């Protein structure tokens, strides 16, 4: 990796929603910090500094993906902390929050420390571990939140499976308050979704696949909103996918509940039709829904009901995916396609560029309570440069992740991250600037 003490990024379109800025400007990075921000052409290149002319493309705070699966420890053949963060960097992300469903589960300080040690040594992005809500994510006993927090966990979740026991969820919401840890809910009423492999409806009937009804998600969101409100704690709802889920969260926010929610790019880009003839690359949980759900998700992103876009990057190898549909693993990779898929919403005038950066950077930072999300002077130089017009084909050979389970392979995209800096260090260079 190249590390430059001084780097000038000139003539970019600075989009920094934290400071309500969207204007051409220059950014000077010294020793890993944003040292100065000015109007375009206002900052002279200091001697011996590297200087990159961005010619008007976007200069934004480093993107933060608050929901990924890095698979290490335990499933290093799918992804590692090194490969996953490299993938994040290639997608424009400077930080990721990794879910605890590794093997062993990240339900204690040792696993959290392991992840952070690995990330410090090999990571190409900041890594924020999410601890488990319950021991082994089994849903029966609380994990050690105090020790998890002390070791560096930023939130708790049993992601991948729901907390079926309402009493345990209540206790998790209560006890997480002692340690100032956010509870992230994987909302799924599993007695309704059990053995389901795609969205329930005419298409699942036609394909002969067991369906997952939308109410399986909505009932659990309602329960968790009710519990959070009852105990007076904030809650974050992961990967929402249905129209009614958006509406539940909208109503809870109107009532003043401290709820935040994320969705994933596939829920605003694809419908269940992507399953086609048993395409396991369109299989994930929650499943792809119908067009009216997709429209509601888009509206929720636009009107502020949904706070963040997170990829739910879930690498799986061919062993888990090139099998019968009902036996295939859930999940798709997403880090490399989030920016172009979200840019499509900007081009459709659903999101403004500033709203897009809020969803992908500012809000995830605020929700998790971590640094970043802004280009304020004095902040760490976590910076992403996005060329919104750059065309590329997401080809299998170009996939950076160790796994290539994406329904977007072969898609022709417009717009992508072209330069990623973490603490002033270039972690991805699609501009050819590493050579001086």
């Amino acid at each position, binding site marked *: 990796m190249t590390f430059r003490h001084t780097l000038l990024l000139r003539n970019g379109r600075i989009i920094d929603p934290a400071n309500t800025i969207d204007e051409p400007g220059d950014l000077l990075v010294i020793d890993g910090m944003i040292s100065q921000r000015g109007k375009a052409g206002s900052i002279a290149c200091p001697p011996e500094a590297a200087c990159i002319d961005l010619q008007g493309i976007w200069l934004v705070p480093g993107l933060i993906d608050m929901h990924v699966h890095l698979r290490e420890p335990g499933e290093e053949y799918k992804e590692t902390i090194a490969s996953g963060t490299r993938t994040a960097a290639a997608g424009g992300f400077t930080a990721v929050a990794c879910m605890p469903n590794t093997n062993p589960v990240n339900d204690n300080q040792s696993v959290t420390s392991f992840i952070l040690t690995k990330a410090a040594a090999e990571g190409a992005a900041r890594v924020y571990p999410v601890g488990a809500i319950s021991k082994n994510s089994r849903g029966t006993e609380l994990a050690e939140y105090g020790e998890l927090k002390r070791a560096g966990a930023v939130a708790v979740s049993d992601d991948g499976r729901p907390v079926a026991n309402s009493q345990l969820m209540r206790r998790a919401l209560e006890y997480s308050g002692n340690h100032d840890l956010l509870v992230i809910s994987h909302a799924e009423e599993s007695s309704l979704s*059990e*053995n389901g492999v795609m969205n*329930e*409806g*005419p*298409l*699942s*009937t*036609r*394909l*002969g*696949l*067991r*369906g997952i*009804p939308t109410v399986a998600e909505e009932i659990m969101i309602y329960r968790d909103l009710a519990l959070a409100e009852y105990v007076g704690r904030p809650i974050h709802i992961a990967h929402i996918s249905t129209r009614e889920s958006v509406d539940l969260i909208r109503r809870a926010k109107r009532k003043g509940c401290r709820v935040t929610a994320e969705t994933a790019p596939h829920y605003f880009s694809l419908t269940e039709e992507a399953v086609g*003839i*048993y395409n396991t690359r369109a299989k994930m949980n929650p499943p792809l829904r119908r067009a009216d759900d997709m429209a509601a998700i888009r509206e929720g992103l636009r009107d502020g009901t949904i706070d963040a876009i997170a990829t739910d990057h879930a690498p799986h190898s061919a*062993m888990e995916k*090139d*099998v*019968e*549909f*009902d*036996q295939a693993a859930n999940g798709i990779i997403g880090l490399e396609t989030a920016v172009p898929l979200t840019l499509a919403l900007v081009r459709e005038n659903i999101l403004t560029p500033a709203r897009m950066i809020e969803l992908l950077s500012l809000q995830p930072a605020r929700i998790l309570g971590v640094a970043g999300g802004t280009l304020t002077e004095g902040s760490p130089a976590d910076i992403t440069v996005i060329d919104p017009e750059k065309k590329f084909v997401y080809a299998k050979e170009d996939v950076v992740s160790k796994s290539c389970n994406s329904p977007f392979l072969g898609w022709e995209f417009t717009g992508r991250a072209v330069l990623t800096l973490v603490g002033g260090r270039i972690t991805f260079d699609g501009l050819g600037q590493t050579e001086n």
Partner: protein
Amino acid sequence: MEFEYRFQHKHILGMEELSSRDITFILDAAESFKEISQRPIKKVPTLRGKTVIHLFFEPSTRTRLSFEIAAKRMSADTFNISASTSSAKKGETLIDTAKNLASMNPDIIVIRHSSSGSPHLLAKHIRASVINAGDGTHEHPSQALLDMMTVREKKGRIAGLKIAIIGDISHSRVAHSNILGFTKMGAKVHVSGPATLIPAGIEQMGAIVCPRVADAVEDADVVMALRIQQERQLDPLLPTLREYASFFGINRSLMRAAKPDAIIMHPGPINRGVEMTTDVADGEQSVIMDQVTNGVAVRMALLYLIMGGDDR
């Protein structure tokens, strides 16, 4: 102006892929093959030198036997493989199994599997023709074709008939294939059964849902009962089989609502006293044994046609 029709399917994966023209062509071929099974020497050399593998991941008696008899009467060499259902359990993936079989150059693989879409997966990875002998809760095309052959034989036509299918529509690949097939041929398919066994959006496959069994059966030309698959129930779908029998079972009194010359069908095996009473199953309206007989003829036709046998 009409173009000359040719049967162009390499695989038989489901009724969804077949047009009404294809179906008529298959049924015509099946009728001409039926006679072979009535000869003293029940064998023609049509598929001599062809290799047919029956790859069954689910237990089956009659479908497998029917396919095997069909292939043998056409002089094909047949091989049967019974495998355990879960690829995880047997330690080899379906694709690996398929590739291994493909390396021995079979011409046709007939597959039954508990996972919907597994014949499609197979067809994607091997050169041989694939016949779906039942995949999960998706399709069972040869069963639908033998049902349509039986109806056409007894009624002289399919278009314009009222077909009532009663029972577990959710888990029945037979129902799914029949709804698609009969609808394509111009029949009206009415379905009825416990609401717990009527799947979401079945109307979009062409079926008319009747909450009351009597409405489905009223003036029907064909009444088909489906097997209640007691082994496949994952959730509470029925209180008791006794209650099912009294409210959804086919009996004499229910049949009075149907047309007087209505025929009664069942894909087998029957749970007597559950889906239908014994007097109905064995009565003069029942064509259940004709279905079995026609199964061999339909399968002979399918084997013949996908081997490109358009040049009789």
